[in-house]
């Protein structure tokens, strides 16, 4: 059995280095071709007709006039007569035409007769108003909650809410499909290159083996692009019916409304604690909606509810709320940002009630978390970077109109590598190819794969050709759950080591040493530790004659922890520093500090980018971003990018990222990073706002109206 383990931390030459992403120039110069950039010969464009009502029955769809419009080649009715529609902007029909404008013209000629049902419910902030749409989904009890509250010196109660967000990927959902008889070419925008042919094939009753998936780049996914979706299936049918390639990407309004949302979460939380801050009891009644299907309970109490060692007495009740809104999709750390926000808000309010520094309260209760030592170290580092001792003031102590506040958030995530197979080829001309059916969501997947291969072969990055984005390559998991880097790095390591064994066997005789005594270092194959008995990489490859080496390596999640290449269990903390204008309600983010561990860090430069980005996404969620529903029409009011607010370059203040790179984390192997730093920022900012304002602002985003309302309620 070859030794696959990572080279020791201090001996790595390519891994662990701040290497720029290898596809950086092609992307930044606009040369990268995304699926939405493709122009195939003879390609048609599709346009969508959707339902304007949140709840309706389709009586009839008449496409006769539309089919006679100039340029129209195929029309599909997606929601035929009799369909009950449960959310506005549900797909009803789609037209393929020579140009996009012609397709849109034809869409306007489709006549749909609806029976409009006016009983829609689209808002869940007040659970009392949703009536029977709220369904209990069980009660969880641990310990003796009532006794623990009696025993408590202090009981703190509050309610908190975090609304629905939309993924708002900049490249909308969609694809180009070319269905030619027994074969289909499929260019999707996806997080799931290897799995998508099977998904589409199942929907179409078409052999997945005959579907070729290609995707060089994807313009954002965030958890919303795992499936072929209705638009993939209908795009294929349009291509079949027209005999032409068809491009269908959602327009921005549909992208915002139907292509993925993060569920809401609301909770009334009661905490009981001793005078010293030790939490004894947790009680919560929560509710959440992920669209027509209700959403489950976020994992509360978050981090402090660690199985076996968490807050000892807990009672949680949850209601799932069914709304006439489009369905949820996985959203970067599903349910964790909500859980972190609910939990950290309640802990912060408890600290205020105890007149205690919340940092001390969090530290006091770390015994309830899965990794007390790590969190303690991280809190201390974050507090130092945020100048907590100098800047933090007790809630309500500040008197002027402009007040500064600090707040804390926390995260945890699993993030072990997914199933992944890598194929490595070493050619007699000395070139190296590394192939995986993976994808790069912006993490730098190609780059980290190249680093692992280069490290293993003792070659520069430029010697490795990394090929991803085709389902013809060996299968790699979908990019979800922060599993990609762990998965592809481990399979690449194993494939590279396996290929190297074959190369050693080919050159052992020439070097006069057994194959197991060779190593690949600095562009040479040499006898271990002996640079004098060496052969340049190129000369070694020439020994292969006319046959290339092909070797595979597989990351098997169940074996991975034992092998030590990747494992689960990231941890991190964030501290926010804000200024609140208590007269206007305007919140300004001064600084967000993130301290994060993710095991072995393959590329600190790319890792920091993930954390910066996650912090900025948290700022959006804490201060700006929310889907706004109109209760009368049941429609999304801000289905565009003017009023669905994302932070611009000037809105984010300073962000300080400290990657917790240390031997004790490194030895756990690679752990995923995409999600954990996107968890705690909303909580940290919300707590900072409340610290500054002197009163809990219970729901995010902390827009001026919400801040002023909270201040008014206190003064009333």
């Amino acid at each position, binding site marked *: 059995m070859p030794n696959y383990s990572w080279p020791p931390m201090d001996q790595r030459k390519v891994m662990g280095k701040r290497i720029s992403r290898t596809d950086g120039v092609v992307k930044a110069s*606009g040369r990268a071709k995304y699926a*939405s950039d493709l122009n195939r010969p003879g390609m048609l464009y599709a346009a969508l007709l959707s339902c304007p009502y949140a709840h309706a029955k389709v009586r009839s769809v008449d496409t006769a006039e539309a089919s006679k419009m100039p340029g129209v080649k195929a029309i599909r009715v997606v929601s035929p007569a009799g369909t009950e529609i449960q959310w506005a902007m549900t797909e009803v029909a789609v037209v393929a035409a020579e140009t996009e404008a012609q397709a849109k013209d034809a869409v306007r000629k489709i006549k749909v007769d609806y029976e409009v049902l006016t009983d829609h419910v689209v808002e869940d902030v007040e659970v009392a108003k949703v009536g029977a749409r709220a369904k209990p989904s069980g009660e969880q009890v641990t310990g003796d909650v009532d006794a623990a509250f009696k025993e408590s010196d202090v009981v703190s109660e509050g309610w908190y809410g975090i609304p629905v967000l939309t993924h708002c990927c900049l490249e909308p959902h969609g694809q180009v499909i070319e269905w030619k008889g027994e074969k289909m070419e499929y260019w999707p925008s996806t997080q799931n290159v290897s799995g998508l042919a099977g998904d589409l094939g199942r929907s179409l009753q078409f052999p997945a083996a005959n579907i070729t998936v290609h995707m060089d780049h994807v313009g954002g996914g965030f958890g919303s692009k795992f499936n072929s979706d209705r638009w993939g299936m209908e795009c294929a049918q349009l291509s079949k019916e027209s005999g032409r390639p068809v491009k269908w990407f959602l327009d921005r309004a549909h992208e915002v409304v139907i292509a993925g949302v993060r569920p809401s979460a609301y909770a009334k939380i009661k905490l009981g604690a001793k005078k010293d801050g030790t939490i004894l009891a947790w009680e919560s009644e929560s509710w959440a909606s992920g669209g027509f299907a209700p959403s489950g309970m976020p994992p509360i109490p978050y981090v402090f509810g660690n199985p076996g060692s968490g807050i000892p007495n807990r009672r949680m009740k949850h209601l799932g709320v069914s709304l006439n809104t489009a369905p949820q999709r996985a959203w970067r750390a599903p349910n964790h940002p909500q859980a972190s926000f609910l939990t950290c808000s309640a802990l912060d309010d408890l600290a205020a009630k105890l007149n205690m520094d919340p940092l001390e309260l969090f530290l006091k209760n770390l015994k309830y978390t899965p990794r007390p030592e790590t969190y303690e170290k991280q809190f201390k580092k974050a507090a130092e970077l945020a100048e907590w001792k100098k800047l933090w003031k007790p809630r309500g102590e500040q008197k002027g109109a402009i007040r500064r506040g600090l707040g804390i958030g926390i995260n945890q995530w699993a993030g072990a590598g997914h199933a992944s197979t890598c194929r490595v080829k070493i050619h007699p001309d000395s070139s190296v190819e590394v192939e995986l059916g993976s994808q790069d969501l912006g993490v730098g997947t190609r780059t980290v794969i190249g680093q692992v291969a280069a490290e293993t072969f003792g070659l520069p990055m430029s010697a490795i050709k990394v090929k991803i984005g085709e389902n013809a390559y060996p299968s790699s998991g979908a990019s979800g759950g922060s599993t990609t880097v762990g998965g592809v790095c481990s399979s690449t390591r194993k494939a590279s080591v396996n290929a190297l064994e074959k190369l050693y066997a080919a050159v052992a005789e020439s070097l006069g040493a057994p194959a197991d005594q060779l190593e690949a270092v600095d562009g040479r194959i040499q006898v271990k530790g002996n640079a004098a008995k060496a052969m340049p990489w190129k000369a070694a490859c020439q020994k292969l004659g006319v046959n290339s080496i092909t070797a595979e390596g597989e990351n098997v999640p169940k074996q991975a922890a034992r092998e030590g290449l990747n494992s689960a269990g990231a941890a991190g903390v964030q501290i926010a520093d804000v200024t609140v204008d208590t007269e206007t309600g305007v919140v300004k983010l001064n600084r967000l500090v993130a301290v994060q561990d993710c095991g072995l860090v393959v590329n600190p430069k790319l890792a920091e980018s993930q954390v910066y980005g996650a912090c900025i996404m948290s700022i959006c969620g804490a201060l700006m971003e929310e889907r706004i529903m109109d209760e009368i029409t049941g429609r999304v009011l801000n289905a565009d990018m003017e009023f669905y607010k994302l932070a611009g370059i000037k809105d984010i203040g300073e962000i300080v990222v400290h990657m917790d790179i240390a031997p004790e984390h490194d030895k756990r192997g690679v752990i995923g990073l995409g999600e954990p730093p996107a968890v705690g920022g909303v909580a940290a900012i919300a707590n900072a706002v409340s610290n500054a304002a002197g009163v809990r602002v219970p729901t995010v985003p902390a827009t001026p109206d919400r801040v002023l309302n909270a201040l008014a309620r206190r003064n009333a």
Partner: protein
Amino acid sequence: MSFEQDPDVQKKGFSRRGLLKGIGVTSGVGLLEKGAEAQTTANVQGPGEVPITLNLNGKPVKVAVEPRTTLLDALRDKLDMTGAKRVCDRGTCGACTVIVDGKAMYACTMLAIDAQGRKIRTIESLAAGANPHPMVKAFVNHDAQQCGYCTPGFVMAATNFVERSATASLTEDQVKDGLGGNLCRCGTYMGIRKAVVEAAKEMKGARNA
């Protein structure tokens, strides 16, 4: 440097900044009139496609478009110049930014027929490959991109901002002011701030040398 102070911008096409300024100082009717004025380009009649010539990256390019076709759609769908992206499609996000007569513009809010006779620069005019344009190089150095879909728009807006700035030594605060018309979903702003400061030194230094 400021878009707001440039009457040309509102007359011949919209930038987000120009549009916001317009809302501030005129009535909605006034805006519509300006939009109508922008569409009265000579010798173009629809509804079918009409031949036009665009001055693209220094070369005349003939293309047939419907009068309602935006410059962005003409570039992407007719000319296969897909560096400019269609994201918000209504002058908010800047992913479609091109430089028209020396000023950053949203290609989604300008009709292709109105772009005739004007100098249009797209991201494809910036060098790529082994020796890329200083702005592209700086974006890579500072990892100022993730998924990369907003990036070409940012690179064009940043290039134009640096070209029009008076100095080679920009501060990050100036960059923040200069790039307020572009949005990123992955959150790459920290790298962008540093990249633009670095690129300005090289771009301006090269010009002065």
